[in-house]
């Protein structure tokens, strides 16, 4: 058997992490306002700065960051539990999500002491929201072809170019952008660096992009000769590609790649309990249940590797690819099941939740790397590339 598959052995969350789950549930019971399922289904697309600040007051923003910066310093297992409980409840976590999951850990790993002292406490207080500037109009999956350029000038950098599909740029304070600091797009990975950009600076224009559900969660950001100070550079000049891959490993390894449609699954379960169900309904929801139990076990196996200090990049890609398939299958199958009999009325809340997820679910296998990118990574892990 390949080494990759050997990583997937059944693992359990330690008892401390399960005890921590109770604290999270208590917090959510008092701090999460009731909301319709179609709203809760937005979870990590749902932006609520007030909720993020309450979470920060509880000490749970910057959950993996060191205590000296105000972080919770939680291990990978507790992070798993916190994220799992918030997503399962449909908590609106988008405001602090990127900073908590990616930007904070990135700064902590590659940033200077001054950068850590400045940004990390703000992240942990829920005062600094981040977005990630990766994709560009002509650079999506082929991320190494980015053209946005920062040129060294007296005292700093001049930044010119354009980022697109940037989640919540219009509501964030900072962007960590992958930009070219030397060479040409033909040089590929070489000459790329990561810069932190204060989005209130002159020369920055942010245009929200409305999606098919009516939400505007992503946007296009234009940089027109924006002056950045010297200390905008995160890590080493020219190390952007390596850093961005480390960052994507943070992004792909959590349980958030299983739970995007569980609010719908729960809503449908409640409807079936109230209205009765056919054998086909029971088989279908039972199938999603056995699949969820399996995928969560895979995700815990990845978390166990993270907790041991390993970097399970390929394992995480594997779980994300099959996890998003599960997330996309749920609205597709429930849509068919509830309309199996056109003479029966469909619960309005359930209907809206199905519609939202059916419409938005194509993004599940785009964000954080497309299927094709992930399958290429798995193939490399299998020694095929």
């Amino acid at each position, binding site marked *: 058997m390949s080494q990759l598959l050997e990583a997937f052995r059944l693992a359990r969350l330690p008892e401390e992490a399960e005890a921590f789950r109770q604290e999270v549930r208590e917090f959510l019971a008092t701090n999460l306002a009731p909301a319709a399922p179609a709203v809760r289904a937005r979870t990590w697309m749902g932006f609520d700065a007030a909720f993020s600040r309450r979470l920060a007051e509880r000490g749970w923003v910057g959950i993996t960051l060191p205590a000296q910066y105000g972080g919770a310093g939680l291990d990978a297992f507790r992070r798993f539990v916190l994220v799992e409980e918030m997503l399962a409840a449909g908590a609106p976590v988008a405001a602090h999500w990127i900073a908590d999951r990616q930007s904070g850990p990135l700064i902590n790993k590659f940033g200077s002491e001054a950068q850590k002292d400045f940004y990390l406490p703000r992240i942990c207080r829920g005062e600094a929201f981040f977005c990630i500037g990766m994709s560009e109009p002509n650079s999506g999956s082929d991320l190494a072809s980015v053209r946005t350029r920062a040129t060294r000038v007296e005292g700093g950098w001049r930044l010119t170019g354009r980022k697109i599909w940037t989640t919540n740029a219009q509501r964030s304070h900072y962007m960590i952008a992958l930009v070219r600091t030397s060479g040409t797009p033909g040089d590929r990975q070489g000459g790329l660096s990561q810069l932190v950009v204060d989005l209130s600076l002159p020369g920055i224009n942010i245009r929200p992009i409305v999606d098919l559900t009516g939400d505007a969660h992503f946007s296009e950001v234009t940089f027109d000769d924006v002056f950045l100070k010297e200390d905008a550079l995160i890590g080493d000049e020219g190390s952007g590609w390596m850093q961005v891959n480390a960052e994507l490993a943070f992004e792909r390894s959590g349980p958030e790649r299983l739970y995007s449609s569980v609010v719908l699954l*729960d809503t449908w379960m409640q409807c079936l309990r109230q209205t009765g169900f056919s054998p086909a*309904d029971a088989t279908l929801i039972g199938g999603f249940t056995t699949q969820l139990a399996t995928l*969560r076990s895979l995700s815990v196996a990845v978390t166990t590797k993270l907790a041991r200090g390993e970097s399970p990049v390929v394992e995480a890609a594997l779980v994300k*690819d*099959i996890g998003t398939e599960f997330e996309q299958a749920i609205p597709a199958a429930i849509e068919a099941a509830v309309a199996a009999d056109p003479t029966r009325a469909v619960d309005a809340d359930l209907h809206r939740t199905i519609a939202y997820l059916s419409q938005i679910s194509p993004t599940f296998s785009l964000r954080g790397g497309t299927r094709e990118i992930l399958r290429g990574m798995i193939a490399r892990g299998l020694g095929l590339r």
Partner: protein
Amino acid sequence: MFTEAIEAILVDQCTPAAIRAIENGGSATALWSALAESGFLELMASEDAGGAGLDLEAIFPIFVAFGRHALPVPAAQSIAARALLGEVAAPQGMVTLAGHARRADDGSVSAGNVAFGAIADHVLANIDGQLVLLDCARAQRTATGIRGSLAASLRWTSDAVGAPVGGNGEQVAVFSAALHAAAIAGAMERMFSMTLGYCNDRVQFGKAIGKFQAIQHQLSVMAEHVACAGVAAELAFQAGEKIPPLLAAATAKARTSASVPLVASTAHALHGAIGVTEEFDLQLYSRRLHEWRMADGSEAYWNRIVGETMLAHTAPSVLQFVMEEIL
């Protein structure tokens, strides 16, 4: 340590040639004796009764190994039978399991599609919730007519049906399903490594076919399903338990079975025509995957049990149900 010892016996005795011989009606005695005489059938029996007292977590890799080697004798069933029988002594010879035997009005008992029914000496059956030991020498055996299959349907007249030996008949189908889940996981491991190896070796258009992206992506998806099947099977085999719990076994059997079509068809597609030949070993596993998917109920059966249980439950979310009742 048991796993290594059994693996050594399997490598030595359970060769593709030996499997084919037994499938073609040859004697299974040599292979069976190698396992039985080493005491491996007593792995789950209590230490007081001279067994090794293994729990499900410890026995799991052995059941997977049986699947990985396409073992053509009911060693897994015979080991499980000893756990199901508890204090009752197991009979000599090959014991297999029948989770859904039925008693007719005339008192006769029939069990359809019993795994290893064609060669077993005894069947430990569930009859209306009762645990009953049945002697195959007194059964009418009807072969399935499927080439190479060792399953058979069995029927006993009422005078051949003894008194129940336990009240835990319901556990037979659950344990048998869990065994088949582990076997599926093992056979999938083998098919995956055969397929990966083949794609690295087979050259077309001047390069190994594994260098083509279309092939790579199929192997990646196959790996995802093999990983799912392995972890799902393991769910039924938890530490400290002797008998798999119903919903964990249901999850294991449903999820492993659900991946059978994709894993078997991808393995065959990537092997090309050689893969469906009798002489190439891939078929030893793919035939079994399909048989095991149907054994004790497919995903259609077990998912429905899980679904109905959850809908009758009070857990407020699917995740909470999964955490409380399955994991």
